[in-house]
């Protein structure tokens, strides 16, 4: 029988990272968390998460950023904001999740095999280039990159959509895509 050993050494905690997180937009209030669990209770997806949202906050408060960044929780978050509207402390948990997602991608520690980060990145690339998202091509690219078998399932719904006149295979693009690219560049440079 295999047993797992779970122990956290205090040296694994990084209070500076917690401080950094606190300064990120939307993350100011997590320090006030009461650990009441309202977020998890309100979240329709918490039952699929490896850590409930409340536990994620507990992890970031204590500076255990490795657990917080590599967990599935943040990628199961559908950004529905139920936690944020119910939180008695006014913590914008959804915005905290976004920050963790960004940080996980930046550090490349997001769980492999989950298609959610793939979708996010594909979406990002497509809009970055064309200014708009073309649903058909987005889903196709995501499936090819993460789970080609899903195409079989997708084909069925795709067919229904096509018949209902809801599937467009045209690539949407804005006229001034170059203007948008200039803007991204300017924003990256900052002021």
């Amino acid at each position, binding site marked *: 029988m295999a047993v797992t050993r779970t122990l956290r050494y205090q040296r694994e905690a990084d209070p500076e990272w917690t401080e950094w997180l606190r300064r990120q937009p939307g993350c100011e209030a997590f320090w006030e968390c009461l650990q*009441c*669990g*309202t977020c*998890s209770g309100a979240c329709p997806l918490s039952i699929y998460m490896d850590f409930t949202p409340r536990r994620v906050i507990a992890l970031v408060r204590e500076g255990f950023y490795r657990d917080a960044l590599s967990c599935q929780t943040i990628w199961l978050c559908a950004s529905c904001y139920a936690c944020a509207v119910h939180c*008695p402390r*006014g913590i914008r948990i959804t915005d905290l999740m976004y920050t963790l997602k960004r940080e996980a991608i930046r550090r490349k520690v997001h769980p492999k095999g989950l298609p959610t980060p793939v979708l996010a990145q594909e979406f990002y690339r497509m809009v970055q280039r064309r200014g708009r998202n073309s649903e058909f091509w987005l889903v196709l690219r995501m499936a090819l990159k993460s789970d080609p078998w899903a195409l079989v399932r997708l084909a069925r719904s795709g067919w229904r959509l096509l018949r209902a006149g809801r599937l467009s295979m045209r690539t949407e693009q804005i006229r001034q895509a170059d203007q948008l690219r200039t803007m991204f560049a300017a924003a990256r440079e900052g002021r």
Partner: protein
Amino acid sequence: MSERGQKLPSDVRVGVYVCHCGVNIAAVVDVRQVAQLARGLPGVVVARDYNYMCSDPGQELIRQDIRDYALNRIVVASCSPHLHEETFRHAAAAGGLNPYLVHMVNIREHVSWVHPDRERATEKACELVRAAVRRVVWHEPLEQARVSIHPDVLVVGGGIAGIHAALTLANAGKRVYLVERQPSIGGHMAMFDKTFPTLDCAACILTPKMSAVQAHPNITLWTLAEVTRVEGYVGNYEVEITRWPRYVREDLCSGCLKCIEACVYKDARFPDEFNLGLSKRKPIYLPFPQAVPQVPVIDPATCIQFKSGKCKKTCVEACGERGAIDLQAVPKVERVRVGSVILATGFQTFDPRRMPEYGYGIYPNVYTSLEVERLVNASGPTGGEIVLRDGRRPQSVGIIHCVGSRDRRHNPWCSRVCCMYSLKLAHLIRERTGAEVFNFYIDMRTPGKGFEEFYQRLLEEGVHFIRGRVAGVSDWALDPSEEGKLVLRVEDTLLGIVRRIPVDMVVLAVGLEPRSDAEELRRLFRVSCSAEGFFLERHPKLAPVSTFAEGVFVAGCCQGPKDIPDTVAQAGAAAAEALALIDRGSIEQEPNTAYVLADHCSACRTCVSLCPYSAISIVGGDGRPHAEINPALCKGCGTCVAACPSGSIRQHLFEDEQIVAEIEGILAGVAGG
């Protein structure tokens, strides 16, 4: 300048004392440097810094220096004058100096606690001390005026706090007016069945006190009454009380209640306020069986006679010769003079309709804790049976703690009593129905005498304690076992698992909040409220029942959430403070009154209409007319002083020279001043 020059005493000898307040000041402000600076200021003979100026040795230091250095002005740089001005005035007086030759500088609340930057905090402290030294030079010896204290007391609110305060005062031989807005005294406590943690019957301990109020020769009890106007000041308040008609005369009624029986409405059909609408009453009713006074009341909103004028008036008939029913009664205004006031107006419970996620008002089986108090009460709408609105007996009950409390969207404070009353209700529900009871809590708070033991008892009784705040209550069934139930979705935070718990009954442990009209009362009595709206005590530790309006005291939940033992203790304290005031007979008044330099006054009358106390009159009609200020009426606001076009009104302790000197002192370091 000439005027000021004349007044400047030739031999000013100032002593300056800079307090460390342990580390409270010294950790931020360089107190040595402040004292150093003070030493160099004109007029300063001695300047010291000391660990605790308010301590006995600190005060002795001042006394000693007055003798050794022949000091005639004192500046103490320490905390807020609201805290220790009296202390240092006493110290100066003990050293043989007139107490009004002392001035305080607030370098704690206004400097060290709010400015973390050492250099800039020290700079500010130095400037404030410099300003104070310049100001104190202009101080003059003053005599205290005394006002006598009227020995009668007004108690507003007839809950347990008001009742206890009134009885304490009356037993000490003082005359008390007890004013209650409801038709009976008793307040929220009268609604409870048992009290935690001893589970003694609320009625058994409260009813005798209510009767004692009624019977006490020193207490004038006015129910259905409200304070509508307040004038005057400590020692001499003039209060106007409006008494709304009961339509049944208290002096004639024998309490036989035959009128209620005789009402043309054979069945009770209007929501009963005392039972929170869980039962019905007639238009003529007794609020509850133990009501004091034991006199029925007629509700004009539902009585046929008042609505249409076409009632057979069977109640009048039933009363017969006694003739206690007076349908012509009109509001009556009483005016009383009292020396002090105790505010004991209580609280209201949080309205859970403000949190639709808990389904109150949507699902009939969601109750507030106060409603359940009535349900478990033997004299309540169900005779103490715990049944749902449809008559079923619940087999499972969920009690949600902290409803409206500890919530930034609603009331951020902890309501203090909910954990304990939830335990009490859990015990009573379990005892009487055998139902499975779930408590959903964020933190269990049981810090009173016998409280933790009671929690332990509940744990042993098998009540569930789930640490987690319920996210929502709904009748959404995901599983056949949940059909027909209310489902609570909650993260059991100790398990780290989200649970769905179906129950028959949900109890919302609603928090305590200030009454919605506390604001009006606050204005009437000119007391302050804290940010959350509870009446503000003068000092949270050292003056917990006094307010910033002298002679007005607070007791009970109008000052903040508290349980019955704390409420009674506070009511006793408020009564004791009032007694102390009365027995002193008189009170020293701050001599900061305004006065007129008659020679300069042109009797232009600008000031006369400005004075809110009508303290100013024009005298000397025959020769040279001028304004005169009655020092007994003047409260020292200084509005007339600022408004006098000829500068002939002045104010003790706030003389123009003093204030201008202070301004100059502050700005002395600025170039170009």
